[in-house]
């Protein structure tokens, strides 16, 4: 009788083992989750909105620093043109503009080109790495990256170009895409020019209309 009871207890134990193991696993997971929630792990919580908010602040900062035309260019086209400051001779200045200029993209190389001919000169790979040593490989929000390049180019062009890695256009950027961007820029400028001229044309048209009406009287 006793032997039979022992055998039954043993069978019950064997059958219950998977359930006991599963429950122990669940309790262990719950304990770890509670520990993590209390700050047991030193991992920063991921904030999905942080980058978006940082980019919004960066756009406002960029807007407050560059002029209205550059801001509109960035907003509409996604890049900013910065004129180069050097020229070998006066003849290099085409139509009073700079002899060469840069297209400043976010997180992409700066492209130098000749505004008059559209000839692509070179691409300058520049980055603004995290100096805080906090580990991780963070980068600036897109608009901050553009602003940093803009500030570096407009304040000390030589220094930033010296620090950059120079390559022929095509290493990182597709030359066809850059040419398309130059075409988009030219179209964009034409449209702005037309828009600027339109109100002045309307104003100059009004007095003549009045004159004609007074003339008919």
């Amino acid at each position: 009788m006793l032997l039979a009871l022992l055998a039954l207890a043993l069978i019950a134990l064997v059958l219950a083992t998977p359930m006991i193991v599963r429950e122990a696993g669940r309790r262990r997971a719950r304990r770890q989750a509670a520990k993590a929630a209390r700050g047991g792990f030193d991992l920063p919580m991921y904030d999905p909105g942080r980058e978006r908010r940082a980019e919004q602040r960066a756009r406002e900062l960029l807007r407050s620093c560059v002029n209205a035309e550059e801001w509109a260019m960035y907003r509409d086209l996604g890049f900013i043109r910065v004129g180069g400051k050097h020229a070998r001779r006066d003849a290099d200045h085409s139509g009073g503009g700079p002899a060469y200029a840069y297209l400043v993209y976010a997180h992409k190389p700066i492209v130098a080109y000749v505004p008059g001919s559209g000839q692509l000169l070179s691409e300058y790979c520049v980055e603004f790495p995290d100096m805080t040593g906090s580990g991780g490989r963070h980068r600036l929000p897109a608009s901050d990256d553009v602003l940093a390049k803009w500030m570096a180019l407009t304040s000390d062009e030589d220094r930033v170009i010296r620090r950059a890695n120079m390559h022929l256009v095509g290493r990182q950027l597709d030359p066809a895409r850059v040419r398309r961007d130059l075409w988009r820029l030219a179209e964009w400028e034409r449209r702005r020019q037309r828009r600027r001229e339109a109100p002045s044309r309307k104003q100059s048209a009004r007095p003549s209309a009045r004159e004609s009406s007074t003339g008919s009287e």
Partner: protein
Amino acid sequence: MKPGHGEVLLAEGDTAVREQEEHLIEEFRRQLDEGMWAAVPTTNAGSGRREAQMVKAYGEIPEGADRVIFFPRASGG
């Protein structure tokens, strides 16, 4: 400008108030010691275009500048 965060306000104060100016100078030096570049957005008196002026010392900050922007120094990418 801080990678991963964007714009962060480091310090603000009135340069006419000595204590506040000292705090600004201290923060300015700390940022440069950490290897940041400092620039002040300005308007070119000749062309009227917006541009930045790099400053390497507190005394180089143009009169009337309302802010100094610190950003990581450029390196070849």
